[in-house]
């Protein structure tokens, strides 16, 4: 460690002060002179033809500025919302990519699809006016489930896609996998559902747009995880605003989890309205509106089979998945259940043959896209449930079967049969530590004791691997990405030696203002409080792809490290001149440039001053000033991995699950700030445990209504369902970035659903239960327990 605020130090967060004193600046807090307020009128039907909209009564109300519809959008030549990823199916054909109008036109395709925007002088008035807008619908039959959507004769979400199939995608070697199954001694099978989730960051989405006619400048404030991408997609593809006239600001953002990493129709509509009406327009989503308009997560139906030999060695894995896209393609939608899912199915195992096919399906539901983990929790859940089932079927110990198939640490770099080359890892090291921390061996005694209290006790284990650090642009391009996935950072060193960093990632809770300052502090030997991290404003920060896919540290941090290295390199040249030494003789350490073998040195601050007051300076060969910029494109994904263990008790009489303990041992590469890492793990595990125990988005099959459409019906995890978690890192360095970092934002969410559900199933295994779909709600478990007891009594 270079100094007490450098890499590895658990320093307290620099950004806390404004949040704990109520001085954060979120989009909803922004007020502009002359601001108007907008409310979206949304479809109450899941599938309907739009026959007409009569806004005359609303428009007659004093204070109502405008009612805008899809017709108006069309008349103004506004484009549809683009999808950022185009995948290719089995047949080599591009996915079906239907139009995604920013306000519905002709038809609505899910409950919550926007049909009009009402702008008024106050929010209350806009709401009242929205109620007065009369929309005539011809209600059509809706389709909610994917199995139904694929049936012949099912209602077509898009007329020209009669089978509702967006893409039939595959990965892996089908023939080799079939051969593995043909030679297998055992085949373990599972059918499972990965339930749909609503991401629900605590801050609802919001957008404010300002148009300055005199300069032609447009500014959008948005609750976005990637303001530069919104600027590019919206400016270029939707509204036709030149890039140099458009500014997107994502100020303090109250949580993202993927939900805010898409270019949303509302951003474009609000910006369009502000330009068209020439007034600032503000829209703040209500929570129940968010349930119907924020992209949702997961929603898979899968069948999977694992082929094993008689010793429990995995020979082949075959997976067939249906993945729900909802009513439109969201920005990354088609990428999530394909490229971020299939290639993760090897897990930490040496399975030699894997084949996975995914049917990507349209339904009359809210669009589905990335939600924390995005594809990788689904892969982990499927694989790790299947491994437990195989163990039970073969009568093998759950730990032994995993050990038997684990990639040994010595085998890295490891090429899987599904595209990925893992650069580093130590799965069995993680497993050993997790088993010890969770006192796995002592579990039988705890189970026996719980039984005396009328409770079923279970312990569950899951390993996982994550591919993150999105992404090497060349590989991503091959997989269908329509953008680069590098990151950029500028290090602006002031004449005084204070530093401003301008970075293209976006922080919405991850603590970047601290973590990134620690990297600079470590390298430059200056305290973190002399370093300011700036992000979230396209007029300040050169460019960037934003924050998602656990990329900020491994991609953004690497760009930052590169820029700091350039600063040091230039500093050495200045120092060589000032110290009258050869550049190779200059070393930089602890914030000082010195001539090796002498006591001659200059402090970092002195070099900075010389760069800006270049009286004695090699001006012939070196520019004055000290500011460096880098764009970093990773050469590979990073591969965090680990082993998690959970212990639960289930009340036999009520089916209530008590999550008693959770141990996470994670290999996340170099740790910059262990306190922040633990926080990321806590939050990630809580979200995964939430899926396992309580959260689920339920649509009514007939009407397509979202039944769990508010916090009254959608069970968010609360403090009293979670235990104190034990978080331990067991890291191997990433081998392809200088910092050795892998990322930690999603690992908790990736490992935890499988871990918790394996514990739940283990608890109920004495009753003969082999699988439970998420969430393990009391109601569901009570029924399972009751049925199993009746069956046992009947025997």
């Amino acid at each position: 460690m270079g100094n007490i605020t450098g890499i590895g130090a658990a320093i307290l967060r620099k950004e806390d002060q404004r949040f704990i004193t109520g001085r954060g600046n979120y989009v909803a807090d922004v007020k502009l002179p002359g601001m108007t307020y907008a409310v979206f009128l949304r479809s109450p039907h899941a599938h309907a033809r739009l026959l007409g909209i009569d806004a005359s009564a609303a428009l007659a109300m004093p204070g109502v500025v405008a009612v805008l519809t899809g017709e108006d959008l069309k008349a103004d030549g506004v484009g549809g919302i683009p999808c950022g990823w185009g995948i290719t199916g089995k047949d080599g054909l591009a996915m079906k990519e239907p139009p995604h109008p920013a306000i519905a036109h002709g038809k609505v395709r899910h409950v919550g699809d926007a049909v009009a925007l009402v702008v008024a002088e106050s929010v209350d008035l806009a709401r009242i006016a929205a109620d007065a807008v009369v929309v005539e619908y011809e209600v059509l039959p809706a389709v909610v489930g994917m199995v139904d959507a694929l049936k012949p004769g099912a209602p077509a979400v898009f007329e020209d896609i009669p089978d509702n199939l967006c893409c039939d995608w595959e990965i892996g070697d089908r023939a080799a996998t079939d051969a593995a199954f043909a030679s297998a001694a055992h085949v373990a099978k599972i059918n499972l559902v990965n339930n749909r989730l609503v991401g629900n960051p605590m801050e609802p989405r919001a957008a404010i747009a300002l148009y300055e006619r005199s300069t032609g400048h447009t500014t959008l404030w948005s609750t976005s995880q990637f303001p530069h991408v919104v600027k590019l997609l919206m400016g270029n593809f939707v509204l036709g605003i030149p890039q140099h006239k458009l500014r997107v600001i994502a100020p303090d953002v109250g949580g993202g989890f993927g939900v805010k990493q898409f270019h949303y129709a509302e951003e474009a509509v609000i910006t369009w309205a502000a330009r068209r009406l020439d007034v600032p327009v503000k829209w703040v989503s209500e929570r129940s509106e968010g349930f119907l308009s924020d992209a949702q997560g997961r929603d898979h139906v899968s069948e999977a089979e694992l082929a094993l030999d008689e010793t429990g060695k995995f020979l082949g894995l075959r997976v067939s998945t249906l993945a729900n896209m909802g009513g439109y393609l969201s920005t990354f939608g088609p990428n999530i259940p394909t490229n971020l899912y299939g290639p993760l199915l090897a897990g930490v195992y040496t399975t030699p043959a894997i084949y996975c096919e995914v049917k990507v399906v349209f339904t009359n539901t809210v669009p589905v896209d990335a939600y924390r983990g995005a594809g990788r929790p689904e892969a982990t859940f499927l694989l790790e449930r299947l491994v437990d089932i195989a163990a039970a079927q073969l009568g093998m110990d759950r730990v032994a079967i995993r050990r038997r198939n684990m990639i040994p640490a010595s085998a890295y770099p490891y090429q899987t049969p599904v595209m990925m080359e893992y650069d580093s890892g130590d799965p069995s090291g993680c497993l050993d530590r997790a088993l010890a921390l969770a006192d796995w061996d002592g579990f039988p005694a705890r189970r026996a004791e719980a039984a005396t209290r009328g409770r079923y006790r279970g312990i569950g284990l899951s390993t996982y691997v994550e591919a993150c650090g999105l992404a090497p642009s060349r590989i991503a391009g091959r997989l269908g990405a329509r953008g680069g996935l590098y990151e950029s950072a500028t290090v602006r060193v002031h004449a005084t030696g204070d530093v401003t960093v301008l970075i293209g990632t976006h922080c919405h809770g991850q603590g970047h203002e601290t973590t990134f300052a620690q990297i600079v502090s470590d390298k430059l030997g200056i305290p973190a409080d002399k370093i300011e991290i700036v992000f979230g404003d396209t007029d300040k920060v050169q460019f960037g792809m934003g924050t998602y896919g656990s990329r900020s540290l491994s991609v953004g941090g690497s760009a930052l490290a590169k820029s700091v290295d350039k600063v040091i390199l230039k500093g050495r040249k200045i120092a060589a001149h000032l110290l009258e030494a050869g550049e190779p003789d200059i070393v930089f350490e602890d914030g000082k440039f010195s001539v090796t073998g002498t006591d001659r040195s200059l402090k970092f601050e002195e070099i900075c001053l010389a760069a800006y007051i270049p009286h004695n300076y090699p001006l012939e060969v070196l520019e004055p000033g000290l500011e460096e910029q880098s764009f970093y494109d990773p050469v590979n994904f990073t591969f965090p991995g680990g082993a998690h263990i959970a212990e639960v008790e289930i009340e036999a009489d009520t089916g209530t699950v008590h999550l008693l303990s959770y141990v996470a041992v994670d290999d996340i590469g170099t740790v910059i700030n262990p306190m922040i890492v633990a926080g990321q793990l806590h939050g990630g595990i809580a979200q995964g445990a939430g899926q396992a125990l309580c959260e689920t988005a339920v649509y009514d099959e007939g009407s397509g209504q979202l039944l769990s459409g508010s916090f009254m019906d959608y069970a968010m995890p609360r403090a009293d369902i979670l235990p104190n978690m034990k978080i331990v890192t067991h890291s191997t360095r990433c081998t392809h970035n200088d910092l050795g970092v892998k990322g930690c934002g999603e690992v908790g969410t990736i490992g935890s659903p499988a871990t918790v559900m394996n514990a739940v199933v283990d608890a109920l295994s004495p009753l003969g239960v082999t699988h439970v779909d998420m969430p393990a709600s009391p109601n569901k478990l009570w029924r399972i327990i009751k049925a199993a007891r009746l069956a046992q009594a009947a025997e």
Partner: protein
Amino acid sequence: MELKLTVNGRKVAVDVPTDMLLVDLLRERLGLTGTHVGCDTSQCGACVVHVDGVSVKSCTMLAVAAQDAQVTSIEGISGAGGRNSLHPMQQAFHENHGLQCGFCTPGMIMSAIDFANRHTEPTEAQVRHWLEGNMCRCTGYQNIVAAILAGTAAMHATASVEAA
């Protein structure tokens, strides 16, 4: 309707519609945007403030119901013991990494202070139970619970010093 109340120690007289919520009075009229709105069903707790010293979800209370009341929001709790000093509960959230995105934080801290006022030596389970009305999507609650335990202890330590 003419409304007179004290907000963060300052006397305020405003003319408000009778259906205005307290949270809107604070955020929209008085510019106190530290109090947040995270839901429309009174469940998230992002909007918690104190009315006459007791925690209240300001999205569930009409502004006019605060006639003559003492209202304290997150902006009004620091400052005791020196202009820039933090309230012990704010300090505890900082020291225990009890916040990430910060959106739930003002409500959490206001709720936690009320909790501390009612409990001298609370257990972890009591804190977790108290937080039934406060949601956080970022932290998994672990460090919030730690912060509230530490903040409660610090508040009572400060109180006993003041008493002595």
